[in-house]
């Protein structure tokens, strides 16, 4: 299987250079050890891969296609832009790739209840979906602010049979949803598996989630080679916790001629306090079980992040990204709310594709890169999710909803 090729820059954790580790209460160590062992065993088990491959094919609809977007690319200095269409997956984003793997793992370790955190709701929807498919009890923790701006996804999760718990502590966003999920896990670890949504958190999550998402890049690498006869000049992805970015970066990490770019949410601007540009503006620290970059004050108190995109509104980032940033193997740049929303509308108007606001950060980054890299460049963009969930935000931003229309 191609997914078993290991490359020289790939670390299996717990550490990625100076980052990663397990900074969690002792009560969770046994569960993390159990998960690590189960994951190692599953990785070596052809039956696990066969079952997961069948789910990808028959349930998610993989492989996802790539789409070249020439009308959009006219705004990027003539560079060729190719989208990896994770937005076409069942449930509407890349999150399902990881969740199906972790749900299978939950079955293997014999637990009947899953919990998850969610920001935009995409990971929560994916987890609720897998729980329905596998007959597992499911509780999703979601910051109260996010339950309001992503109300449609709350309804989807409830329709799928999950319990959605609005978290009212702290900044009432993704960071606090993770705290609450950790508290649930500490209390119910005997019966419960924590299906973590991104490449952050304590070991084994960063390596495991990356391994479950690397199918994005493995597919895209072959697809781009088939289409263009060469590797892309650059790969672009948005970075919140960073799972879609690690998923597409991993296949190219040992191709030194392929530049890797992560685009962080800069909110009102990286120079303002209202941003979520963790690598650009943060410094190393410990948050949610791992050492990585984070937004924090002088005393190490976590700062509230700000982004129009709930899925990127997170003051931390996965430890492997921190390591790749320090090594210079990947570059991380800020994209403001305005830049992302402008790119979102541009893709809609030029190509008839409405991306998630998260993914629109990568599109805005690709426009910037195309102008820098020139017309001979080929930029592969991970279109990590679709924009249906963002219609009320986009409607308000672009003033698209008639004032006297019934609110749905």
């Amino acid at each position: 299987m191609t997914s078993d090729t290991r490359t020289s820059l790939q670390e299996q954790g717990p550490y990625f250079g100076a980052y990663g580790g397990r900074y969690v209460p002792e009560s969770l160590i046994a569960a993390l050890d159990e998960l690590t062992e189960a994951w190692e065993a599953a990785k070596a088990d052809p039956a696990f891969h066969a079952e997961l491959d069948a789910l990808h094919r028959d349930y998610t609809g993989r492989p996802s296609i790539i789409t070249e977007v020439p009308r959009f690319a006219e705004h990027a200095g003539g560079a060729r832009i190719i989208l990896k269409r994770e937005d076409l997956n069942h449930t509407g984003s890349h999150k399902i790739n990881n969740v199906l793997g972790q749900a299978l793992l939950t079955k293997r370790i014999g637990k009947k209840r899953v919990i998850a955190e969610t920001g935009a709701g995409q990971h929560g929807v994916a987890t609720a979906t897998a729980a329905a498919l596998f007959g597992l009890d499911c509780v999703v923790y979601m910051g109260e602010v996010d339950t309001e701006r992503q109300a449609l996804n709350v309804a989807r999760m409830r329709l799928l049979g999950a319990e959605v718990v609005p978290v009212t502590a702290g900044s009432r966003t993704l960071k606090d949803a993770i705290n609450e999920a950790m508290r649930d896990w500490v209390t119910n670890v005997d019966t419960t598996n924590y299906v973590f949504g991104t490449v952050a958190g304590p070991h084994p999550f960063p390596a495991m989630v990356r391994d479950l998402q690397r199918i994005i890049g493995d597919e895209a690498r072959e697809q781009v080679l088939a289409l263009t006869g060469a590797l892309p000049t650059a790969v672009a992805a948005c970075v919140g916790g960073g799972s879609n970015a690690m998923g597409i970066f991993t296949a190219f990490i040992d191709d030194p001629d392929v530049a890797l770019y992560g685009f962080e949410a800069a909110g009102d601007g990286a120079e303002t306090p209202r941003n979520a540009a963790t690598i650009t503006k943060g410094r190393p620290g410990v948050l949610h079980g791992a050492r990585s970059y984070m937004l924090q004050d002088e005393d190490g108190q976590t700062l509230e992040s700000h982004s129009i995109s709930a899925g990127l509104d997170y003051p931390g980032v996965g430890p492997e990204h921190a390591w790749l940033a320090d090594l210079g193997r990947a570059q991380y740049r800020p994209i403001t709310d305005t830049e992302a929303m402008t790119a979102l509308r541009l893709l809609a108007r030029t190509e008839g594709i409405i991306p998630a606001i998260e993914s629109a950060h990568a599109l805005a980054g690709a426009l910037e890169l195309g102008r820098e890299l020139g017309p001979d460049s080929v930029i592969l963009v991970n279109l990590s999710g679709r924009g249906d969930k963002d219609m009320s935000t986009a409607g308000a931003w672009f003033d698209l909803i008639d004032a006297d229309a019934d609110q749905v």
Partner: protein
Amino acid sequence: MTDTATSSVEKAIADRRAAGSGALVGYLPVGFPDLGTSIDAAVALVENGVDVLELGLPYSDPVMDGPVIQAATQQAISNGFRLRHGFEAVREVRARVDAPVLLMTYWNPVLQYGVDRFADDLAEAGGAGLITPDLIPDEADLWLAASDRAGLDRVFLAAPSSSDDRLRHAVEISRGFVYAVSTMGITGARSDVDKAARLLVDRLRGVGAESVCVGIGISTAEQVTEILGYADGAIVGSALVNALAQGGVSAAAELAARLAEGTRAASRRPDAGPSAL
């Protein structure tokens, strides 16, 4: 357990054990409801029978804490809590009462302050050491070196789910006491402190622990008495914080006095402690 001779915490616990009972460890967060009142309340706990103080440093993401301590520490941060207030609190409490003071802190504040600088400033303020709820022994190299150099206690957690090897390691590198987590869960009062606590303390004795305090869920004198039947100390947190929030310093002091009655009622079984004592 390393270098027991230097630990004032271990001595305070051993003294209560030698007197046929066990120690009461009381937790309050620094800066709740404000810095001055938190110091007054900590002093009042000692004046009413608390043997060892555990002062918590409020942190933005306290994953081990339940709603009572979350609300208190969030209020302290909103009111302008800074790390330096922790050292001020230790210094003032030590000037007013004679009981060892441990700080309880999540790891990132220590890391950002500088591990060595933190150890030096804590020792200089008269603090006894640190309880570190999200620092497992595997990740603690910096802290082991700094605490050795500064002569500070280091209290690691032991959980019912920990393997024997992990318990042994925690016992070997802890100084002051080992914090036995009574039940799988976060801080907050519970009507029944889990039977798992007794089993965990037995397992810790089996790998050589001489100073074990049980925490999480303890709120009554009866629970203190029960726990001191097999452990060396009982740790009370959320109940004291709740008393302080509801009734001020006098209410926290009254609860401390009632809990201390629980230590005097404790009648230790001869097989409860290490045979050397």
